[in-house]
Protein backbone atom coordinates (compact mmCIF):
# COMPACT_ATOMS: atom_id res chain seq x y z
CA UNK A 1 0.00 0.00 0.00
CA UNK A 2 2.82 2.38 0.99
CA UNK A 3 4.83 1.48 -2.12
CA UNK A 4 1.81 2.13 -4.27
CA UNK A 5 1.35 5.61 -2.77
CA UNK A 6 5.04 6.44 -3.22
CA UNK A 7 4.99 5.22 -6.83
CA UNK A 8 1.87 7.22 -7.60
CA UNK A 9 3.29 10.37 -6.00
CA UNK A 10 6.52 10.11 -7.98
CA UNK A 11 4.65 9.34 -11.20
CA UNK A 12 2.52 12.48 -10.78
CA UNK A 13 5.63 14.62 -10.19
CA UNK A 14 7.46 13.21 -13.22
CA UNK A 15 4.36 13.59 -15.39
CA UNK A 16 3.87 17.25 -14.42
CA UNK A 17 7.56 18.13 -14.87
CA UNK A 18 7.68 16.43 -18.28
CA UNK A 19 4.45 18.17 -19.29
CA UNK A 20 5.89 21.55 -18.25
CA UNK A 21 9.09 20.92 -20.20
CA UNK A 22 7.14 19.83 -23.27
CA UNK A 23 5.00 22.97 -23.10
CA UNK A 24 8.07 25.14 -22.66
CA UNK A 25 9.92 23.56 -25.58
CA UNK A 26 6.93 23.61 -27.91
CA UNK A 27 6.00 27.21 -27.03
CA UNK A 28 9.55 28.49 -27.32
CA UNK A 29 10.07 26.78 -30.66
CA UNK A 30 6.85 27.73 -32.41
CA UNK A 31 6.06 30.88 -34.40
CA UNK A 32 3.83 33.59 -32.87
CA UNK A 33 0.97 32.27 -35.00
CA UNK A 34 1.35 28.72 -33.65
CA UNK A 35 -1.22 26.63 -31.79
CA UNK A 36 -0.06 27.33 -28.24
CA UNK A 37 0.03 31.07 -28.95
CA UNK A 38 -3.49 30.76 -30.39
CA UNK A 39 -4.63 29.00 -27.19
CA UNK A 40 -3.13 31.85 -25.17
CA UNK A 41 -4.93 34.41 -27.33
CA UNK A 42 -8.18 32.46 -26.91
CA UNK A 43 -7.68 32.42 -23.14
CA UNK A 44 -7.01 36.16 -23.21
CA UNK A 45 -10.27 36.68 -25.12
CA UNK A 46 -12.18 34.75 -22.47
CA UNK A 47 -10.59 36.30 -19.39
CA UNK A 48 -10.28 39.90 -20.61
CA UNK A 49 -13.89 40.83 -19.74
CA UNK A 50 -13.51 39.10 -16.34
CA UNK A 51 -10.25 40.96 -15.69
CA UNK A 52 -11.90 44.19 -16.79
CA UNK A 53 -14.81 43.68 -14.39
CA UNK A 54 -12.50 42.66 -11.52
CA UNK A 55 -10.26 45.63 -12.26
CA UNK A 56 -13.17 48.06 -11.98
CA UNK A 57 -14.50 46.41 -8.83
CA UNK A 58 -11.12 46.36 -7.09
CA UNK A 59 -9.98 49.81 -8.19
CA UNK A 60 -10.80 51.46 -4.83
CA UNK A 61 -8.65 48.87 -3.01
CA UNK A 62 -5.75 49.44 -5.42
CA UNK A 63 -6.11 53.21 -5.17
CA UNK A 64 -6.08 53.03 -1.37
CA UNK A 65 -2.82 51.10 -1.21
CA UNK A 66 -1.35 53.03 -4.14
CA UNK A 67 -2.25 56.32 -2.44
CA UNK A 68 -0.39 55.34 0.73
CA UNK A 69 2.73 54.53 -1.30
CA UNK A 70 2.44 57.71 -3.37
CA UNK A 71 2.32 59.89 -0.24
CA UNK A 72 5.78 58.68 0.77
CA UNK A 73 7.23 59.68 -2.61
CA UNK A 74 5.38 63.00 -2.87
CA UNK A 75 7.81 65.12 -0.84
CA UNK A 76 10.98 64.09 -2.67
CA UNK A 77 9.19 64.38 -6.00
CA UNK A 78 8.00 67.91 -5.18
CA UNK A 79 11.55 69.18 -4.55
CA UNK A 80 12.79 67.49 -7.71
CA UNK A 81 9.96 68.96 -9.76
CA UNK A 82 10.51 72.49 -8.44
CA UNK A 83 14.10 72.34 -9.69
CA UNK A 84 12.91 71.00 -13.04
CA UNK A 85 10.32 73.74 -13.44
CA UNK A 86 13.00 76.43 -13.10
CA UNK A 87 15.22 74.72 -15.68
CA UNK A 88 12.36 74.17 -18.10
CA UNK A 89 11.24 77.81 -17.87
CA UNK A 90 14.68 78.92 -19.03
CA UNK A 91 14.62 76.36 -21.85
CA UNK A 92 11.15 77.42 -22.92
CA UNK A 93 12.23 80.99 -23.49
CA UNK A 94 15.16 79.82 -25.62
CA UNK A 95 12.97 77.46 -27.63
CA UNK A 96 10.31 80.02 -28.53
CA UNK A 97 12.20 81.41 -31.52
CA UNK A 98 13.25 77.95 -32.74
CA UNK A 99 9.65 76.86 -32.63
CA UNK A 100 8.60 79.57 -35.08
CA UNK A 101 11.24 78.42 -37.57
CA UNK A 102 10.19 74.83 -37.07
CA UNK A 103 6.54 75.56 -37.88
CA UNK A 104 7.61 77.09 -41.18
CA UNK A 105 9.77 74.07 -42.01
CA UNK A 106 6.94 71.68 -41.21
CA UNK A 107 4.78 73.49 -43.74
CA UNK A 108 7.50 73.25 -46.38
CA UNK A 109 7.94 69.51 -45.85
CA UNK A 110 4.13 68.95 -45.55
CA UNK A 111 4.66 67.49 -42.12
CA UNK A 112 2.22 69.78 -40.40
CA UNK A 113 -0.45 67.07 -40.61
CA UNK A 114 1.73 64.77 -38.55
CA UNK A 115 0.54 64.43 -34.97
CA UNK A 116 -0.46 61.74 -32.59
CA UNK A 117 -4.05 62.07 -33.82
CA UNK A 118 -3.04 60.90 -37.30
CA UNK A 119 -2.10 57.56 -35.69
CA UNK A 120 -5.73 57.01 -34.59
CA UNK A 121 -4.99 56.68 -30.88
CA UNK A 122 -7.23 54.25 -29.03
CA UNK A 123 -7.55 54.84 -25.30
CA UNK A 124 -7.43 51.67 -23.21
CA UNK A 125 -7.50 50.76 -19.54
CA UNK A 126 -4.86 48.53 -17.96
CA UNK A 127 -6.63 45.53 -16.42
CA UNK A 128 -3.73 43.25 -15.39
CA UNK A 129 0.00 43.46 -14.74
CA UNK A 130 2.71 40.81 -14.49
CA UNK A 131 4.39 40.51 -11.07
CA UNK A 132 7.50 38.93 -12.61
CA UNK A 133 10.87 40.74 -12.84
CA UNK A 134 11.50 39.10 -16.19
CA UNK A 135 8.16 39.83 -17.82
CA UNK A 136 7.29 43.51 -17.73
CA UNK A 137 3.87 43.27 -19.35
CA UNK A 138 0.35 44.59 -18.90
CA UNK A 139 -3.02 43.53 -20.30
CA UNK A 140 -5.35 46.20 -21.69
CA UNK A 141 -9.10 46.07 -22.29
CA UNK A 142 -9.03 46.89 -26.04
CA UNK A 143 -8.18 44.45 -28.82
CA UNK A 144 -8.76 43.65 -32.47
CA UNK A 145 -12.31 44.97 -32.18
CA UNK A 146 -10.92 48.46 -31.51
CA UNK A 147 -8.44 48.24 -34.41
CA UNK A 148 -5.33 47.18 -32.50
CA UNK A 149 -2.54 45.22 -34.22
CA UNK A 150 0.59 43.49 -33.03
CA UNK A 151 3.52 45.98 -32.83
CA UNK A 152 1.31 49.07 -32.38
CA UNK A 153 3.12 51.61 -30.16
CA UNK A 154 1.63 52.34 -26.73
CA UNK A 155 2.00 55.72 -25.01
CA UNK A 156 0.59 57.68 -22.11
CA UNK A 157 0.69 61.34 -21.13
CA UNK A 158 4.28 61.01 -19.88
CA UNK A 159 5.85 59.25 -22.85
CA UNK A 160 6.47 55.87 -24.47
CA UNK A 161 5.06 52.91 -22.57
CA UNK A 162 5.68 49.92 -24.88
CA UNK A 163 4.18 48.02 -27.78
CA UNK A 164 1.38 45.54 -28.42
CA UNK A 165 2.63 41.95 -28.62
CA UNK A 166 -0.53 39.83 -28.59
CA UNK A 167 -4.03 40.79 -29.66
CA UNK A 168 -7.32 39.08 -28.83
CA UNK A 169 -10.77 40.34 -29.79
CA UNK A 170 -11.39 42.26 -26.56
CA UNK A 171 -7.96 42.53 -25.02
CA UNK A 172 -4.28 42.85 -25.81
CA UNK A 173 -0.93 42.20 -24.22
CA UNK A 174 1.53 45.09 -24.05
CA UNK A 175 5.26 44.62 -23.49
CA UNK A 176 6.53 47.60 -21.50
CA UNK A 177 9.80 49.34 -22.41
CA UNK A 178 11.32 47.67 -19.32
CA UNK A 179 10.57 44.15 -20.62
CA UNK A 180 13.66 42.08 -21.37
CA UNK A 181 12.45 41.44 -24.96
CA UNK A 182 12.12 45.13 -25.89
CA UNK A 183 14.40 47.29 -28.02
CA UNK A 184 13.49 50.74 -29.38
CA UNK A 185 15.37 52.96 -31.82
CA UNK A 186 16.00 56.25 -30.02
CA UNK A 187 18.13 59.36 -30.01
CA UNK A 188 19.16 62.00 -27.55
CA UNK A 189 16.99 65.13 -27.93
CA UNK A 190 19.11 67.47 -30.03
CA UNK A 191 21.39 64.93 -31.70
CA UNK A 192 21.03 63.01 -34.92
CA UNK A 193 22.79 59.80 -33.90
CA UNK A 194 20.43 56.94 -33.16
CA UNK A 195 20.92 53.98 -30.86
CA UNK A 196 18.86 51.17 -29.44
CA UNK A 197 17.30 51.62 -26.05
CA UNK A 198 17.02 48.43 -24.01
CA UNK A 199 15.99 47.69 -20.44
CA UNK A 200 18.43 46.57 -17.78
CA UNK A 201 16.83 43.42 -16.46
CA UNK A 202 16.31 43.66 -12.71
CA UNK A 203 16.27 47.45 -12.59
CA UNK A 204 12.94 48.86 -13.75
CA UNK A 205 14.12 52.46 -13.28
CA UNK A 206 17.07 52.18 -15.63
CA UNK A 207 17.23 51.83 -19.42
CA UNK A 208 20.37 51.68 -21.53
CA UNK A 209 20.70 53.59 -24.81
CA UNK A 210 23.39 51.62 -26.64
CA UNK A 211 25.36 51.69 -29.90
CA UNK A 212 25.63 55.46 -30.14
CA UNK A 213 28.71 56.67 -32.06
CA UNK A 214 31.61 57.39 -29.68
CA UNK A 215 31.50 61.14 -30.41
CA UNK A 216 27.79 61.55 -29.64
CA UNK A 217 27.32 64.48 -27.26
CA UNK A 218 25.35 63.43 -24.20
CA UNK A 219 24.73 65.31 -20.98
CA UNK A 220 22.86 64.14 -17.91
CA UNK A 221 19.34 65.58 -17.87
CA UNK A 222 18.86 65.56 -21.66
CA UNK A 223 15.74 63.91 -23.02
CA UNK A 224 15.79 60.70 -25.04
CA UNK A 225 13.08 60.37 -27.68
CA UNK A 226 12.04 57.80 -30.26
CA UNK A 227 13.92 58.21 -33.52
CA UNK A 228 11.06 57.11 -35.77
CA UNK A 229 13.20 54.45 -37.45
CA UNK A 230 13.28 50.67 -37.17
CA UNK A 231 16.27 48.38 -36.79
CA UNK A 232 14.58 45.37 -38.40
CA UNK A 233 11.44 44.83 -40.53
CA UNK A 234 9.66 43.19 -37.57
CA UNK A 235 10.15 46.17 -35.27
CA UNK A 236 7.40 48.51 -34.22
CA UNK A 237 7.51 51.88 -35.95
CA UNK A 238 7.22 54.36 -33.12
CA UNK A 239 6.43 57.87 -34.29
CA UNK A 240 9.47 60.13 -33.95
CA UNK A 241 9.85 62.40 -30.94
CA UNK A 242 7.91 60.45 -28.31
CA UNK A 243 9.72 61.04 -25.02
CA UNK A 244 11.23 57.88 -23.51
CA UNK A 245 13.32 59.15 -20.62
CA UNK A 246 16.06 61.40 -19.29
CA UNK A 247 19.81 60.74 -19.43
CA UNK A 248 21.16 59.96 -15.95
CA UNK A 249 24.78 59.06 -16.75
CA UNK A 250 27.10 58.54 -19.73
CA UNK A 251 29.32 55.47 -20.14
CA UNK A 252 32.53 55.85 -22.11
CA UNK A 253 33.30 52.79 -24.22
CA UNK A 254 35.86 52.22 -26.95
CA UNK A 255 33.82 51.91 -30.14
CA UNK A 256 30.39 53.00 -28.97
CA UNK A 257 28.94 55.23 -26.32
CA UNK A 258 26.06 54.17 -24.11
CA UNK A 259 23.95 56.22 -21.74
CA UNK A 260 21.75 55.29 -18.81
CA UNK A 261 18.21 56.60 -19.08
CA UNK A 262 15.48 56.93 -16.47
CA UNK A 263 12.05 56.23 -18.05
CA UNK A 264 9.64 59.19 -18.17
CA UNK A 265 6.48 57.12 -17.85
CA UNK A 266 5.68 55.82 -14.38
CA UNK A 267 5.30 52.17 -15.32
CA UNK A 268 4.40 51.12 -11.78
CA UNK A 269 1.09 52.95 -11.83
CA UNK A 270 -0.32 52.58 -15.32
CA UNK A 271 -4.03 53.14 -15.44
CA UNK A 272 -4.89 54.49 -18.89
CA UNK A 273 -2.78 54.24 -22.05
CA UNK A 274 -3.16 55.11 -25.72
CA UNK A 275 -2.43 52.70 -28.54
CA UNK A 276 -1.35 54.27 -31.83
CA UNK A 277 -3.16 52.01 -34.24
CA UNK A 278 -2.04 53.19 -37.67
CA UNK A 279 -0.30 50.29 -39.37
CA UNK A 280 2.83 50.67 -41.51
CA UNK A 281 2.49 51.87 -45.08
CA UNK A 282 -0.16 54.48 -44.28
CA UNK A 283 0.30 58.21 -44.70
CA UNK A 284 1.05 58.86 -41.05
CA UNK A 285 3.83 56.30 -40.87
CA UNK A 286 5.31 57.45 -44.19
CA UNK A 287 5.37 61.00 -42.92
CA UNK A 288 6.86 59.84 -39.66
CA UNK A 289 9.62 58.10 -41.58
CA UNK A 290 10.23 61.24 -43.61
CA UNK A 291 10.40 63.32 -40.43
CA UNK A 292 13.04 61.01 -39.08
CA UNK A 293 15.29 61.79 -42.05
CA UNK A 294 15.29 65.54 -41.34
CA UNK A 295 18.61 67.17 -40.38
CA UNK A 296 19.54 67.30 -36.68
CA UNK A 297 18.15 70.73 -35.85
CA UNK A 298 14.78 69.91 -37.36
CA UNK A 299 14.71 66.57 -35.63
CA UNK A 300 15.12 68.27 -32.31
CA UNK A 301 12.31 70.60 -33.06
CA UNK A 302 10.23 67.69 -34.23
CA UNK A 303 10.61 65.98 -30.91
CA UNK A 304 9.42 69.03 -29.07
CA UNK A 305 6.37 69.30 -31.25
CA UNK A 306 5.46 65.68 -30.91
CA UNK A 307 5.73 65.95 -27.18
CA UNK A 308 3.43 68.92 -27.39
CA UNK A 309 0.95 67.05 -29.55
CA UNK A 310 1.17 64.12 -27.20
CA UNK A 311 0.26 66.33 -24.31
CA UNK A 312 -2.58 67.94 -26.22
CA UNK A 313 -4.26 64.59 -26.85
CA UNK A 314 -4.74 64.30 -23.12
CA UNK A 315 -3.31 60.81 -23.06
CA UNK A 316 -2.71 59.14 -19.81
CA UNK A 317 -5.71 60.48 -17.95
Amino acid at each position, binding site marked *: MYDKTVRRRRAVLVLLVVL*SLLLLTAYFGEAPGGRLHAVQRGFLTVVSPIQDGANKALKPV*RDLFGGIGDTFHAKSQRNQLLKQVGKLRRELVADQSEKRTYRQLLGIYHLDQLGINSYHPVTATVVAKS*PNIWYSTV*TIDKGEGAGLHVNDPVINGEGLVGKVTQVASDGA*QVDLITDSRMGVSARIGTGNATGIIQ*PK*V*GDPNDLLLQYLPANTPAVAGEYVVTSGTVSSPDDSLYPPGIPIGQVTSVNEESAYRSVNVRPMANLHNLDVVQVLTTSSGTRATKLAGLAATLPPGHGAASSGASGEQLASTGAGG
Partner: protein
Amino acid sequence: MSGSGISASLLLRVAAMSVICVFLQIGVVSEVPVFGITVDLSPLLVAFVGLLCGSMIGAVAGFAVGLLVDLALVQTLGVTSLIFTLIGYWSGRLRELRDPQAALTPLLVGASAAAVALVGYSLIEFMLGVDAPVSLELLRQIVLGVVVSSIVALPLWAIVRRILEGALPEDPRRRRRRRAYTTGGLSPLSRA
Protein backbone atom coordinates in the same frame (compact mmCIF):
# COMPACT_ATOMS: atom_id res chain seq x y z
CA MET B 1 -13.89 11.15 0.61
CA SER B 2 -11.70 8.93 -1.54
CA GLY B 3 -9.27 6.34 -0.32
CA SER B 4 -6.33 8.72 -0.47
CA GLY B 5 -8.14 11.19 1.79
CA ILE B 6 -8.58 13.77 -0.96
CA SER B 7 -12.15 15.02 -0.95
CA ALA B 8 -14.03 16.81 -3.70
CA SER B 9 -14.58 19.67 -1.27
CA LEU B 10 -10.82 20.07 -0.82
CA LEU B 11 -10.17 20.09 -4.57
CA LEU B 12 -12.93 22.62 -5.09
CA ARG B 13 -11.59 24.90 -2.38
CA VAL B 14 -8.01 24.69 -3.74
CA ALA B 15 -9.21 25.39 -7.30
CA ALA B 16 -11.39 28.36 -6.30
CA MET B 17 -8.67 29.80 -4.10
CA SER B 18 -6.06 29.45 -6.87
CA VAL B 19 -8.21 31.20 -9.48
CA ILE B 20 -9.13 34.05 -7.13
CA CYS B 21 -5.50 34.43 -6.01
CA VAL B 22 -4.18 34.63 -9.60
CA PHE B 23 -6.75 37.24 -10.65
CA LEU B 24 -6.24 39.23 -7.45
CA GLN B 25 -2.49 39.06 -8.03
CA ILE B 26 -2.48 40.31 -11.62
CA GLY B 27 -5.34 42.80 -11.13
CA VAL B 28 -4.47 44.41 -7.81
CA VAL B 29 -1.36 43.19 -5.98
CA SER B 30 0.93 43.59 -9.02
CA GLU B 31 -0.01 47.25 -9.30
CA VAL B 32 0.82 48.10 -5.69
CA PRO B 33 4.60 47.98 -5.25
CA VAL B 34 5.96 47.51 -1.71
CA PHE B 35 9.44 49.08 -1.27
CA GLY B 36 9.61 49.20 -5.08
CA ILE B 37 8.98 45.45 -5.29
CA THR B 38 5.92 43.67 -6.64
CA VAL B 39 4.84 40.93 -4.26
CA ASP B 40 4.02 37.61 -5.93
CA LEU B 41 1.43 35.72 -3.90
CA SER B 42 1.15 32.72 -6.27
CA PRO B 43 4.30 30.80 -5.17
CA LEU B 44 3.35 31.37 -1.52
CA LEU B 45 -0.14 30.02 -2.14
CA VAL B 46 1.23 26.93 -3.88
CA ALA B 47 3.72 26.30 -1.06
CA PHE B 48 1.00 26.63 1.59
CA VAL B 49 -1.35 24.31 -0.29
CA GLY B 50 1.48 21.75 -0.40
CA LEU B 51 2.25 22.28 3.28
CA LEU B 52 -1.38 21.68 4.26
CA CYS B 53 -2.51 19.07 1.74
CA GLY B 54 0.62 17.07 0.89
CA SER B 55 2.97 16.66 -2.04
CA MET B 56 0.56 15.32 -4.64
CA ILE B 57 -2.04 18.09 -4.31
CA GLY B 58 0.80 20.59 -3.91
CA ALA B 59 2.39 19.53 -7.21
CA VAL B 60 -0.92 19.48 -9.10
CA ALA B 61 -1.96 22.86 -7.66
CA GLY B 62 1.47 24.25 -8.57
CA PHE B 63 1.17 23.06 -12.16
CA ALA B 64 -2.38 24.43 -12.50
CA VAL B 65 -1.60 27.83 -10.93
CA GLY B 66 1.56 28.14 -13.05
CA LEU B 67 -0.36 27.33 -16.23
CA LEU B 68 -3.05 29.84 -15.32
CA VAL B 69 -0.44 32.55 -14.69
CA ASP B 70 1.35 31.82 -17.99
CA LEU B 71 -1.91 31.83 -19.92
CA ALA B 72 -3.35 34.95 -18.30
CA LEU B 73 -0.16 36.98 -18.65
CA VAL B 74 0.82 35.60 -22.09
CA GLN B 75 4.21 34.43 -20.81
CA THR B 76 6.28 31.52 -22.10
CA LEU B 77 4.07 28.49 -21.36
CA GLY B 78 5.57 25.92 -19.02
CA VAL B 79 8.08 28.11 -17.16
CA THR B 80 5.86 29.03 -14.21
CA SER B 81 4.22 25.56 -14.21
CA LEU B 82 7.61 23.88 -13.87
CA ILE B 83 8.76 26.11 -11.00
CA PHE B 84 5.45 26.00 -9.12
CA THR B 85 5.15 22.20 -9.51
CA LEU B 86 8.49 21.80 -7.75
CA ILE B 87 7.54 24.32 -5.03
CA GLY B 88 4.22 22.56 -4.35
CA TYR B 89 5.81 19.11 -4.33
CA TRP B 90 8.70 19.95 -2.00
CA SER B 91 6.58 21.87 0.50
CA GLY B 92 4.23 18.86 0.55
CA ARG B 93 7.17 16.51 1.15
CA LEU B 94 8.30 18.75 4.00
CA ARG B 95 4.94 18.17 5.68
CA GLU B 96 4.99 14.42 4.99
CA LEU B 97 8.55 13.88 6.24
CA ARG B 98 8.96 16.42 9.05
CA ASP B 99 5.50 17.87 9.76
CA PRO B 100 6.97 21.08 11.23
CA GLN B 101 4.74 22.63 13.88
CA ALA B 102 6.74 25.79 14.71
CA ALA B 103 4.88 29.09 14.40
CA LEU B 104 7.50 30.47 12.04
CA THR B 105 7.35 27.50 9.63
CA PRO B 106 4.99 29.27 7.17
CA LEU B 107 7.31 32.28 7.14
CA LEU B 108 10.33 30.14 6.27
CA VAL B 109 8.38 28.10 3.73
CA GLY B 110 7.03 31.30 2.15
CA ALA B 111 10.49 32.87 1.96
CA SER B 112 11.93 29.68 0.45
CA ALA B 113 9.10 29.48 -2.10
CA ALA B 114 9.66 33.10 -3.14
CA ALA B 115 13.42 32.52 -3.41
CA VAL B 116 12.95 29.36 -5.51
CA ALA B 117 10.48 31.17 -7.78
CA LEU B 118 12.68 34.25 -8.30
CA VAL B 119 15.93 32.33 -8.78
CA GLY B 120 14.15 29.67 -10.89
CA TYR B 121 12.74 32.29 -13.27
CA SER B 122 16.15 33.88 -13.63
CA LEU B 123 17.88 30.56 -14.35
CA ILE B 124 15.32 29.52 -16.95
CA GLU B 125 15.40 32.93 -18.63
CA PHE B 126 19.20 32.78 -18.77
CA MET B 127 18.99 29.30 -20.31
CA LEU B 128 16.45 30.48 -22.90
CA GLY B 129 18.69 33.44 -23.76
CA VAL B 130 18.37 37.08 -22.74
CA ASP B 131 18.85 39.83 -25.33
CA ALA B 132 18.84 42.72 -22.88
CA PRO B 133 21.70 43.56 -20.50
CA VAL B 134 21.17 42.26 -16.97
CA SER B 135 21.69 44.63 -14.05
CA LEU B 136 23.25 43.68 -10.73
CA GLU B 137 20.10 45.24 -9.31
CA LEU B 138 18.49 41.89 -10.14
CA LEU B 139 20.17 40.38 -7.07
CA ARG B 140 18.83 43.18 -4.88
CA GLN B 141 15.36 42.69 -6.37
CA ILE B 142 15.53 38.96 -5.59
CA VAL B 143 16.63 39.54 -1.98
CA LEU B 144 14.00 42.27 -1.46
CA GLY B 145 11.38 40.03 -3.10
CA VAL B 146 12.14 37.27 -0.59
CA VAL B 147 11.99 39.71 2.34
CA VAL B 148 8.68 41.23 1.24
CA SER B 149 7.21 37.78 0.55
CA SER B 150 8.18 36.75 4.10
CA ILE B 151 6.22 39.72 5.44
CA VAL B 152 3.03 38.70 3.66
CA ALA B 153 3.57 34.96 4.26
CA LEU B 154 2.03 34.77 7.74
CA PRO B 155 -1.27 36.56 6.94
CA LEU B 156 -1.61 34.58 3.70
CA TRP B 157 -0.92 31.33 5.60
CA ALA B 158 -3.71 32.19 8.06
CA ILE B 159 -6.15 32.80 5.20
CA VAL B 160 -5.19 29.62 3.29
CA ARG B 161 -5.40 27.46 6.43
CA ARG B 162 -8.76 28.95 7.35
CA ILE B 163 -10.20 28.23 3.90
CA LEU B 164 -8.90 24.64 3.70
CA GLU B 165 -9.32 23.70 7.37
CA GLY B 166 -12.62 21.82 7.16
CA ALA B 167 -11.64 19.79 4.12
CA LEU B 168 -8.07 18.72 4.94
CA PRO B 169 -7.26 14.99 4.88
CA GLU B 170 -6.62 13.42 8.28
CA ASP B 171 -2.90 13.03 8.88
CA PRO B 172 -2.00 9.71 10.63
CA ARG B 173 1.04 11.30 12.30
CA ARG B 174 -1.02 14.16 13.75
CA ARG B 175 -3.79 11.72 14.76
CA ARG B 176 -1.27 9.64 16.73
CA ARG B 177 0.16 12.76 18.35
CA ARG B 178 -3.29 14.04 19.31
CA ARG B 179 -4.35 10.64 20.71
CA ALA B 180 -1.19 10.47 22.79
CA TYR B 181 -1.99 13.72 24.54
CA THR B 182 -5.74 13.32 24.84
CA THR B 183 -5.80 9.69 26.06
CA GLY B 184 -2.57 9.93 28.01
CA GLY B 185 -1.25 6.77 26.34
CA LEU B 186 2.22 8.07 25.79
CA SER B 187 2.28 10.78 28.44
CA PRO B 188 5.13 10.44 30.95
CA LEU B 189 2.61 11.21 33.73
CA SER B 190 0.65 8.03 33.00
CA ARG B 191 3.67 5.88 33.82
CA ALA B 192 3.85 7.28 37.34
